């Protein structure tokens, strides 16, 4: 087995030479996670906004559920999506199991509650501030939601990036529904798991470094946006 320093050197070589396998895995990871993020935002943001401004019986139960779903175990999500997409499942006819689409679905299920719950809190705070003004202006519910989302855009980007961070670092669900098939459904996290178990620490480390870099970039982006938004009083 390679020792750690050798693996580290090899990892850098893979990164600097833009190894084809490595690039393929990274690109697929980003494609799956970014698509899942777009879907989650399309569902989670309006959902969070609706719950933020609506008052209805049982709302507190919905809030508890939304918050609880933020901690969904990825393997459970993977299992549930698997059961739905397998041949015996209700969506088996779509033949999506072990495809990137299945992985996108699993990650969307995983991060939609995060986007919805975090955005709900942000939008509810903003709505408390705007409520009377909007009421006075006679804004419709749809217009209120649109305006809240627009005005909370910087805070909501932070939410989206948190969702992306969760999706791109997730392994359990994509492993179950994607199957970690080489050149088809192998993403960074599943590849790291596989290469570590096979003892190919160089590729595992290189992928780990890319993941860390993405994580750092995401955090830097969040901080920059927060600072910019605060400076211009847009947050």
């Amino acid at each position, binding site marked *: 087995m390679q020792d750690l320093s050798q693996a580290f050197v090899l990892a850098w070589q893979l990164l600097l030479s833009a190894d084809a396998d490595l690039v393929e895995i990274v690109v697929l990871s980003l494609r799956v996670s970014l698509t899942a993020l777009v879907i989650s935002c399309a569902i989670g943001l309006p959902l969070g906004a609706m719950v933020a401004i609506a008052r209805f019986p049982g709302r507190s139960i919905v809030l508890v559920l939304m918050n609880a779903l933020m901690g969904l175990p990825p393997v459970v999500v993977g299992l549930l999506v698997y059961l739905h997409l397998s041949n015996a499942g209700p969506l088996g006819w779509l033949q999506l199991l072990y495809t990137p689409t299945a992985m996108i679905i699993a990650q969307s299920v995983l991060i939609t509650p995060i986007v919805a719950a975090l955005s709900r809190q942000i939008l509810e705070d903003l709505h408390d*501030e*705007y409520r*009377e*003004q909007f*009421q*006075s*202006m*006679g*804004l419709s519910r749809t*217009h209120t939601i649109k*305006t809240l989302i627009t*005005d*909370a855009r910087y805070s909501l980007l932070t939410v989206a990036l948190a969702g992306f961070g969760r999706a791109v670092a997730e392994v359990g669900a994509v492993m179950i529904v994607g199957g970690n098939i080489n050149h088809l459904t192998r993403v960074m996290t599943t590849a790291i798991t596989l290469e570590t178990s096979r003892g190919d620490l160089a590729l595992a480390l290189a992928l780990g470094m890319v993941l860390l870099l993405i994580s750092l970039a995401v955090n830097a982006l969040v901080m920059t946006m927060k600072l910019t938004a605060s400076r*211009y*009083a*847009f*947050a």
Partner: protein
Amino acid sequence: MTASMNTPGPTTANSLLPANVNQLSYRSGGKTLIDAVSFTLNTPHITAVMGSNGAGKSLLLRLLHGLIEPSSGSVSWGNQPLNSTVRQQQAMVFQKPVLLRRSVAANIDFALQLFRQSARQSNNALASGSHRATIKSQRDDILDKAGLTHLAKQPARLLSGGEQQRLALARALVFEPDVLFLDEATASLDPASMARIETVVKAVHHSGTKIIMVTHDIGQAKRLADDVLFMHQGQLIEHTQAPAFFTQPTTERAQAYLEGRLLVD
């Protein structure tokens, strides 16, 4: 002598008058916060709502504007019940201006688009019509009147208190309201900022808009108000012409308030 006595009266008819408030009450948490208030406002003049803290002035304004539902009693405007159509003809400026997290110009654009949208729904030919160019021209005109042109691209929330309040007022006026509510709109502003707001208020009043303003500032009420509603502990204890109120208040409570005497309830 009030300022309004020196200025010409409103130039147009006001479709929301008279305003009839009948036995209006509001209760919350087992307390009666507005207690069977009744009055009628017939003229498109400036009405000041005065009284000590906790008298129910701001609450009364919210009830008149329909922001909260009364526990009992009724409010009608121009012989129509207070509904969303009536509320569209009213606007309110709050003590703490609520500005969108956008530029000054974008705050005005937001109101213009909303107004044009509601005008299109009610087939108002004046407000409908072409889009971006008209909005820009209207916005420029509004910012110019509010003295905010040079700040158009600034984030609204970075303006000074007076500028923010002028923007909030300018935005409210986009809706061409028949009734404008001002909830301590000049509280905490310096005299210069207050004067600029008062100039706009007078111009708006002159154009026919009924103004109902909550104020603690006796000087301001003397300068602007034509009549005064004086509240105490949720009750309306005086409704009279401003000159009479300031010279011969009929209640001990109002007299003490005007003299600045400290009364413990």
